[in-house]
């Protein structure tokens, strides 16, 4: 339970790009429970500088945000040599979110509302390598 077998100082960084404060906060709580280092970015703008600055091990990306659309972000990210290998998991409430995520080249998709175990599982999966 709650990843007790993990080392307490999980050095893995998760960048949560999510404009809904409630969701970003709950994701932060859940992942911190699992000793992840969580950085929250609440706007569509300034995402790339935030990535560049924080160098996360994984990005959890919402699709519909004010400022910049998630798909725009992913496009730019993939075009950047130093950042193109950061795994991106799209987290969206859109019913066709999965299709969009695949189309734009995201590594995975998590539908909102999610089961918190699924959230942890998916983050573990892309950061354990």
């Amino acid at each position, binding site marked *: *339970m709650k990843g007790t077998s993990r080392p307490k100082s999980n050095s893995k960084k998760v960048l949560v790009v999510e404009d809904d404060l409630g969701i970003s906060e709950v994701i932060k709580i859940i992942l911190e429970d699992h000793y992840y280092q969580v950085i929250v970015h609440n706007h569509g703008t300034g995402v790339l500088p935030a990535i560049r600055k924080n160098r996360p091990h994984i990005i959890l990306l919402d699709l519909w945000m004010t400022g910049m659309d998630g798909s725009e972000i992913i496009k730019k990210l993939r075009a950047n040599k130093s950042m193109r290998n950061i795994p991106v998991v799209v987290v969206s409430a859109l019913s066709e979110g999965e299709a969009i995520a695949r189309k734009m080249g995201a590594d995975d998709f998590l539908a909102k509302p999610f089961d918190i175990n699924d959230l942890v599982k998916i983050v573990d999966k892309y950061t354990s390598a």
Partner: protein
Amino acid sequence: MSYEDKALGNQVTRKNSIPQKKLGRRTGGKSSSGRKGGLAALQSEKAWGGNSEKWLAGRPEKDQTRLITRFRQQIQHTQKRAAALKYERDLRETILENTKASLAMVDRNFNFLKVNSAYAKSGGFKKHELLGKNYFALFPDEKYRRMFEQACSLGRKVTYPRILLPFPSRSEKETYWDLNLVPVKRGGKIAGLVISCVDVSEDVHSDLEREQLLSQIQKEQAQTARKAAEASRHASELDAVFMALTDPVLIYDARGTLASFNPATLTMLGFDLIGKRFTKVNKTLKMRLLSGAPASFEDYLFLGAIRGKPVTGRIFLITTKTGTDIAVIASASPIINNNRVTGVAVTLHDISERLKLEQQKDEFIAIASHELKTPLTTLKALTQLFRQRSARPERQADYQYFSRFETYLNRLLELVTSLLDVSKVASDNFALKRKMFSFDKFLEDLVNDFQQTETTHCIEVKNSFRGKIYADRDHLAQVITNLLSNAIKYSPQSNAIIIKTTYSPHFLTISIKDFGVGIPDSLRERVFDRFFRIKGPKGERFPGLGLGLYIANKIVKLHGGRMWVRSMEGQGSVFYFSLPLKEVAQLRQPAKK
């Protein structure tokens, strides 16, 4: 005849006195010919002056000789005259007897004096049955009496044309006659009537037939004229409708050439395509499916309808002369004349606006669903978080509360998902994501998950199918979850649900059985309708939107299967759905190698 001539001559020679008397007596016994003799005798007596004996008596011999000579001469003359008269009389008799006309003579009191055979026969009598009888005793008819009296009083021939049986008749046959009444005068007085009847039935009948035919022809002419007028009215009405319709109507002839169209066609399309083949019309309008794929629109419509069956409700995109894209719903009807398809009428209806509205509705629902799900995401995650954090013996109560919290949240989420699904399913904007997967593992996991949050009912699984299926996993789970939720919801008094599978080479059939309120026969078909709800035996309402079965049925149909139900009111229901396995079998072969 010659015998009578001789007899008459001999008697006159042998007995000088009153030969007419003897003659009359001798021949009197004979019915008709005797009468003829009597008549002739009367006439010869008149010629003699009626006193020959007185004339000879007391004359000198020389005178006597001279007188005898003269007498002889007179006799010879009389004989000749009598013969001539006789001849004439016989001729008349012959004519009377042999004429086709029916002739009779009556006296002033209308007793029959003479009838010819034709007359008697016409009425179905024998001559002797009529002779001497009174006409009106046999044939009491005041109308004829008046006619007879009139002829007598007028004293000249009166003709009544085309009279039905104007004589004593036993015949039932409908015959028509021209009736002539000729008064016979004697001594300036009317002594009787000659009645002559000529059968004109054939004329009358043919006239009647002609009249009937004529009236029939006139009737038919009138009817045809009426029909023509009606057709013309109908045609002008149709023409008015055709012209006034705001939807385009294109009329093709049997060979697929555009014969005519209404003004709305030109208004919508902008092209004048008259005389063009349907293939050319297609090309000009760039007929295509909504997806953009080329569609031989009228290939379907024209070629479909020309076979005699209407084609309805096909949706296409077309491009007008101005370059505007229009979505149309098109139908084609065969034009049938005398059981032959002589053309096709194609109608188009612009549904661009409707499609736009539908698209807006879809967008709205997508946004609404997204907006609803966003706060639910936080709520659900927090609830789950707190439940997990309270998973300790000393916080058992909290754990229970959070579990319940989560159950209700999931129900809320299901409703939101249903609303979204129903809009997608209704707009056929519902794409399946089919994959191959093991059915038994899938079912086991699904039921285990379901059972975890289910406290009232125990779900028993009887599955013997070990193969893989090719289906949309999430949506198939949605179907089964929905059927399970319904089974539980509608069987509050029981605690068992049975899931069973059967399969054939072609189909896998899954059934979910409950022991609940059941569905009345009359409503069985309606349970798959949108927003349909079943009430409990006491009229109680069950929670829900009435969308679950509608969506489940649609999902099964999209998989190429079908869903049905068997139910006994008060005993429970069994919902079945089938999934085709044919493609699975094909797909499984290489996987086994």
